[in-house]
């Protein structure tokens, strides 16, 4: 059985070991606090984009509303810890379960829709959640935001320290990757891919397509909630504008640019967009001396160019090189199953 799996998907331990080695080695090379912050944020966003990759790349359902779930997670953590002195870990768990249930109920209705209409419905949900976050100011603190969210600590170890938090976030990312690859490599993953290729075809095989779509939607929302909690405890301050539609669009762009058919692609895309963002902002402000969000021009251009010329994203380019390297007979016919 093990062998069949290895033939179908290739070994995943190579990727995992490389990933762990990279994460452990990075702190030795980074001296600037600023870049360290960037890496922590990339880790947090990766958790969301991996979920989106499962939803978009594997199940074939679009969402431009995951910032809402990110926001729900952040606010549940923030409100419970800052106002009610609850244990952060318990609050994080409550946030994840609550988001899962909310997303499950939303998904039951929303996922009947397809393509463009689904995109609009998720935008609508995001806008409604945003308005509620600002409007329910008695609970959420309203437009001025929520302050005083405590740092995390684990077994007496204070995680406010950048280095500690870096390892915590990436440990979570690792768990999320492990869990997601397990899903992708199980029969559920194969059903999802089959839904992606043809919903009607899958339904005629007697599969309850709706059930799988809703479950994966709720799971990706739960990832977003986890990321939101980690974000809240890292920044110690949350305000509604962070969780608006523009953030959902940013997340979607990260996944699409990186390569939607692979969770590694989602992570590459997240890192690429985050670094690009910083570089453009730096160049724009120091060289051209323009203020405001000018980086969006380059963003927009890159999105259009990547989508036209490499619809499989950055990982697609890497993949072509990889295929030359492993042209062994066993893997030749099932190359399309790769991507994990």
């Amino acid at each position, binding site marked *: 059985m093990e062998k069949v799996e290895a033939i179908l998907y290739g070994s995943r331990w190579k990727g995992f070991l490389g990933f762990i080695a990279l994460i452990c080695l990075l702190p030795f090379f980074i001296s600037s606090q600023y870049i360290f912050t960037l890496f922590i944020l990339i880790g947090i966003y990766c958790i969301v984009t991996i979920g989106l990759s499962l939803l978009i790349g594997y199940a074939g359902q679009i969402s431009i509303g995951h910032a809402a779930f990110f926001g729900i997670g952040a606010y549940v953590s923030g409100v419970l810890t800052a106002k009610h002195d609850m244990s952060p870990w318990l609050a994080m768990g409550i946030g994840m379960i609550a988001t899962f249930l909310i997303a499950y109920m939303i998904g039951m209705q*929303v996922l009947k829709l*397809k393509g463009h209409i689904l995109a*609009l419905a998720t935008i609508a949900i995001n806008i409604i959640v945003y308005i509620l976050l600002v409007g329910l100011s008695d609970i959420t603190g309203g437009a001025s935001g929520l302050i005083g969210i405590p740092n995390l600590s684990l077994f007496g170890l204070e995680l406010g320290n950048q280095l500690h938090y870096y390892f915590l976030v990436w440990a979570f990312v690792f768990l999320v990757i492990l869990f997601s690859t397990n899903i992708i490599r199980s029969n559920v993953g194969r059903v999802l891919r089959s839904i992606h290729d043809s919903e009607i075809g899958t339904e005629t095989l007697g599969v309850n397509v709706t059930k799988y779509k809703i479950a994966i939607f709720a799971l990706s929302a739960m990832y977003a909630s986890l990321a939101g909690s980690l974000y809240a405890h890292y920044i110690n301050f949350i305000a509604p504008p962070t969780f608006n539609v523009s953030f959902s669009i940013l997340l979607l762009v990260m996944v699409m640019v990186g390569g939607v058919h692979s969770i590694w692609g989602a992570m590459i895309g997240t890192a690429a967009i985050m670094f690009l963002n910083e570089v453009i902002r730096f160049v724009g402000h120091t060289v051209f001396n323009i203020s405001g969000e000018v980086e969006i*021009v380059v963003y927009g251009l890159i999105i259009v160019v990547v989508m036209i010329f490499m*619809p499989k994203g950055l990982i697609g380019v890497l993949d072509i090189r990889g295929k030359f390297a492993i042209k062994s007979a066993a893997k030749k016919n099932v190359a399309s199953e790769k991507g994990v």
Partner: protein
Amino acid sequence: MDLFLQYLITGLTVGSIYALLAVGFVTIYNVTGVLNLAQGEFAMIGALSCVTLVNLGIPILGAIPLAILITAIIGFGVERLAIYPARNATPIILVVITLGVSIFLKGMGLIIWGSSPKSLPPIVESRSIQFFGAVINSQSIWIFILLFVLLILLYWFFDKTFIGSALRASEKNPHAASLMGINTSTMSTIAFTIAAALGAIAGVMIAPLTDATYEMGFFIGIKGFVAMIFGGMHSVPGAVAGGLLLGVIEAFSGGYISTYYTDALAFGFLLLVLFFRPQGLFMRATGERV
């Protein structure tokens, strides 16, 4: 009663703008199958380039057609450069491409016009009119007249001219249309150009009421999209009715419930429509679910 009438008129004014955008959406969606999320940016470009032209000393009645022309050319360019090369891609990729175009145009707007809001003088300076106790801004009347004229023009264009028939043919069945000698790729370009012009008209008309900024596009575009869905995706009259309905819903919920939750209520209503009548409010059900 006075208030009721006032809300109704305000709603219809804003609704007319949504209707113009929705007509642009319907035109593009039906001819190309692409949902153009950059539609709102055309309104932004139309409004802001009109402001620039007026500041250059061109009289407003000359500046408006010029601004519409500029936006139409940009619409043409968008189709050729961004949509045409990816015409065979999946809907998700096309949505992301139009999102990219939308972000790009917004950024260009920021670089060219800066972030401060700009105001545009109304077409004709005149006093507001009293009507059964409600106050009607003169710009509102111009918007109603313009919407009416445009609808007649569009009806004439789609039903009585050759190009209009060709556009409708490529909507009904692109393959058969191409067999009849219609160049469907040209039709797609024409659809984008028309939609951009309609967007620009919407932008120019709303700018005297709300001021124009580089950020106005996305939200106004989403509202046009909502109006199109109320109308059922495929019909121009439906889109207009949907736009007016959306405007009225917003005005009444703002007036009687809370101005703060206006958008939440409008989008909540959208979700209800999508869940219970995905074929649109004014259409009979067809076999195809959206």
